[in-house]
């Protein structure tokens, strides 16, 4: 923080970061009270892209809400698809064939890689490096091509159904995915040599933007933000779902609590995603991809259901209340970035504006998901 004698009258000024600002990656507005270059107070202002997804869920049938889940976090849509179908399947008591579960894991992890690659490019772009974005997008394009070949969409996927998946995967997808794993593994060292070991990057991120584990707990931050603060919490391990217990993978944890730790968590996660996909492809069983007994019209029994999945940005929780009819009575979406953004005000206090933007980039915000 500035020395008090530099600013004896405590004069501050207010600037608006956003709602149209390249560093906020969407329509987020942050009201910053500044003392020169230093932040005195930061207040995120939300609601610019609020679309009432929860209310929409109460006004349409269970199946009709499926496309909405892809529009929360458009960069990691399949995780949100997964969270929703999973909780409804549990509510309605639908058994999912094993092959479908493996396909879900493969596609979700591919989507997670695509999401992290985009974050990598955009984050380095925030810090002023343009070239890595192009390399990351080149690789991401391969993932999107693979996902397009099975889901039919490139971004807002609506692939999972209650009781399975919409399409089976085919041989070209499997060989394409194996080729992609090999390709990305050969490219990751370049990513690290170009960015991770770069002196400018290190100076901008190391020991900048500390977020303690205690602060994460207070705000409910999850995902790479929490794991970058030394807490090993991942829904895939802590509350295993789908076929994750049968796959061998590690949860990257860094205890430095700075922007660099959050960066490293995501980079290591890409590596772990490749491991998961490789194992899932090896273990992929034959069989149907859709439950035979899946009812056409879903009417879960009266009750209150909650399910959570590990999305690319943290824990995505979904609570549905059923009154036994063909529309949900209540739908509550717990999105990870909302909690992750909430701590920005406290974490950025006293920081230089440029460092605060590095901190914001390391939170990996997706605004439509915060506003819902």
């Amino acid at each position: 923080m500035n020395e008090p004698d530099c600013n004896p009258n405590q004069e501050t000024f207010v600037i608006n970061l956003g709602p149209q600002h390249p560093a906020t990656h969407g329509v987020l507005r942050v009201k910053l009270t500044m003392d020169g270059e230093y932040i005195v107070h930061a207040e995120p202002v939300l609601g610019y892209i609020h679309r009432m997804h929860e209310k929409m869920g109460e006004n349409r049938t269970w199946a009709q809400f499926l496309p909405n889940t892809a529009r929360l976090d458009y960069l990691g849509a399949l995780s949100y698809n997964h969270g929703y179908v999973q909780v409804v399947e549990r509510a309605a008591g639908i058994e999912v064939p094993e092959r479908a579960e493996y396909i879900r894991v493969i596609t979700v992890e591919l989507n997670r890689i695509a999401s992290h690659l985009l974050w990598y490019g955009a984050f380095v772009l925030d810090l002023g490096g343009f070239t890595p974005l192009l390399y990351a997008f080149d690789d991401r394009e391969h993932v999107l091509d693979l996902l397009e070949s099975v889901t039919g969409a490139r971004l807002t996927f609506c692939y999972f159904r209650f009781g399975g998946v919409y399409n089976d995967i085919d041989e070209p997808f499997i060989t394409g995915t194996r080729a992609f794993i090999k390709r990305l593994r050969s490219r990751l060292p370049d990513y690290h040599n170009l960015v991770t070991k770069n002196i400018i990057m290190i100076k901008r991120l190391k020991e900048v933007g500390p977020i303690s584990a205690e602060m994460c707990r207070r705000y409910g931050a999850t995902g790479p933000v929490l794991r970058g603060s030394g807490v090993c919490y991942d829904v895939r391990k802590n509350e295993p779902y789908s076929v994750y217990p049968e796959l061998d993978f590690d949860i990257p944890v860094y205890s430095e609590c700075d922007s660099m730790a959050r960066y490293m968590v995501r980079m290591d996660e890409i590596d772990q995603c490749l491991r998961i996909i490789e194992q899932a492809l090896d273990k992929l069983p034959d069989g149907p991809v859709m439950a035979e007994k899946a009812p056409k019209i879903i009417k879960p029994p009266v009750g209150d259901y909650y399910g959570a999945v590990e999305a690319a940005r943290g824990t995505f929780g979904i609570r549905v209340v059923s009154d036994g009819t063909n529309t949900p009575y209540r739908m509550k979406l717990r999105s990870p970035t909302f909690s992750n953004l909430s701590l920005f005000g406290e974490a950025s206090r006293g920081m230089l504006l440029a460092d605060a933007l590095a901190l914001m980039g390391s939170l990996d915000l997706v605004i439509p998901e915060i506003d819902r």
Partner: protein
Amino acid sequence: MSGYFCELYSGTKSLFVGLGITFRYMLKPVVTLQYPHESLPMSARFRGHIELIGDEETGAPKCVVCGMCQKGCPSNCISLAGEKPEGGKGKVLTSYILDFTKCSLCGQCVESCKFGAIRFSKDYNLAGPRKEAYIFDLLKRLEEKGR
């Protein structure tokens, strides 16, 4: 002091390593296409806006006007109408309007159709000056295609 020089050395080295990587990539083949002069083939499962499927022999739509697609649609994009011809069996489609401004390409309509009468098109070059350009008369499109 020695730490300072060490950092200066390793920092400068890291910059040159990075430059080396970009130089290597500069010599590699180009990965982008000169769109619109070149374009990639569409994947087989690409989900464009829906289109009606005509009968192979007569060219008439396979649709039997059951209205399941209309019911399944989350955004009420589909409006269709049919009439019963005198002496004929079943209904005949007279209009099928897709309001593409509201469609989110979820595919509920295609899945709910038991008669295989609709499918996704591969049409992705969609740009129009006003809203009306996205109100598609699918029956008219099918007739034009049949000609």
